[in-house]
């Protein structure tokens, strides 16, 4: 992992991109890092495009701005690809991780020739198989941890077990499904 990793999330209101960014901040915090996790608040409604951010660093973080040149971008909803400039400022040394089943050719066209690495995962499939419902944020969390090499698979799974216990204290029946979603997503994320 680099000294400072900057991540930008693109999703739609209600899909949990904000929650995913906060869970990522949690997991990175628990593995000894300095972290920031913050959404860009606007007039959000269910379905409207939203942006959230993470900074993960070995050193204290003082900067308090949005992220304009991220190392990584996570796209939680591929219908945003044609309406939002998701690769804006994205470093070519970094990568973009997209929840999609679309073809490599389509992605290369719609990402306007972005020359960094492109990763995809079918978070819908992972979520339906493990949770029986469509919650893309847990698979996307695992995918970005894997792609950005923020921590080992084992560290992520151990840490998230604790976080889910806390987060889902009132509905413990979903903990196992979410853990399975993480495990499966770690295997399913693929480089295009």
């Amino acid at each position: 992992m680099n000294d400072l990793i900057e991540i930008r999330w693109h999703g739609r209101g209600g899909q949990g991109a904000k929650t995913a960014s906060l869970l990522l901040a949690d997991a990175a915090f628990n593995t000894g890092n300095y972290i920031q996790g913050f959404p860009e608040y606007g007039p959000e409604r269910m379905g409207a495009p939203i942006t959230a951010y993470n900074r993960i660093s070995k050193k204290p973080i003082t900067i308090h701005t949005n992220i304009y040149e991220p190392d990584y971008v996570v796209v939680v909803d591929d219908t945003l690809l044609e309406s939002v400039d998701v690769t804006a400022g994205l470093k070519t040394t970094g990568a973009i991780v997209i929840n999609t089943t679309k073809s490599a050719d389509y992605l290369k066209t719609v990402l306007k020739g972005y020359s960094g690495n492109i990763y995809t995962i079918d978070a819908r499939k992972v979520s339906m198989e493990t949770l029986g419902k469509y919650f893309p944020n847990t698979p996307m969390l695992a995918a970005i941890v894997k792609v950005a090499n923020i921590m080992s698979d084992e560290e992520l799974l151990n840490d998230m077990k604790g976080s889910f216990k806390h987060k889902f204290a009132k509905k413990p029946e979903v903990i196992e499904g979410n853990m399975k979603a993480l495990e499966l997503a770690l295997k399913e994320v693929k480089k295009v």
Partner: protein
Amino acid sequence: MSIRERLSGNEAVATAMKQINPDVVAAFPITPSTEIPQYFSTFVANGSVDTEFVAVESEHSAMSACIGAEAAGARAMTATSANGLSLMWEMIYIASSLRLPIVLSLVNRAVSGPLNIHCDHSDAMGVRDSGWIMLFSENNQEAYDNLLMANRIAEHKDVLLPIMVCQDGFITSHSIENIELEEDEKVKEFVGTYKPNHYLLNKEEPIAIGPLDLQSYLFEHKAAQAQAMRNAKNVILEVSKDFEKMAGRKYGLFEEYKLEDAEIAIVCMNSTAGTTKFVVDKLRENGIKAGLLKIRVFRPFPTIEIANALSKLKAVAILDRADPLNNAGGALFEDITSAMYTQNIHVPMVNYIYGIGGRDTKSTDIESVYSDLQKIVETGNIDNPYRYLGLRKEEN
């Protein structure tokens, strides 16, 4: 041992309030400070505090309830933002003139209109001369630490003034970041018990609070308020010293970041100071002698100390996050230039209005300010001292 945690700015404030465990909290929700009374009300419901939580119907009532509680002899706290503070305005002056050490957490947001929920300092600047002590906080840690110190400062016998602790709406209030928390017992001991000398519910000493005060004495009472504000400066330093003994984190009236050998500097408050530190580090790597003076104590304003701290610089930019709309520069700019003038220190200074209504202040914006300052040093020419930073250019 401090406890390593990660909290948003609002969570940090709510945690401090839980540890302070005041007698009364009266609040009305308003973005972006809503979470503070929201979290606090769960502490009340869970029994982790024994505070009387008053869910009032407006901010005017929130401040009124705090005034009533403090006058009765209790320790009272509240939180608000922007128009919430505007609605309190009448009672803000009553609180300070009655010398009631109420503690308010202000999560800075643009005052309407048009309606905007994001950060600027127009709310705080609207009450800057209302007799409240005002502390500003760069991040969640400082919002927490300043709040832990707030009661001791406000309740000190030489002060007895209300205090507000500010932090930037959303930018820090809603950002999860690392923080060092102090243990409950240590905080309890540090904050201490509130023992007012005079209070309404003392049957041994029947008193009236806030009666008519006409030509004969209002002037003297105002002068006493002003003296209390002057006294607050040393009390803040004393309390900060004690705090450092407990927590190991050092606070002064302001923070000087790489200022000692700096040739050019920015003065600003709250979260932008953090971004400025990031830029200063970057410029220093390239041999540019850049520095920062971050205001912590805005009221009482440390006039002489700031003037001295800036005296050796070749050019200074003062950043104001509230447009004064007055053709005379932002509040911070006015205060600092006035301080310099009265100390007979002349340093070229420019004012930038920035970040209005939550406009993101990028590191490149801050870089551009330092580069402007370099130009001023080179040419000796200020041109226009009243500038904007990050304002949209006119498009043809």
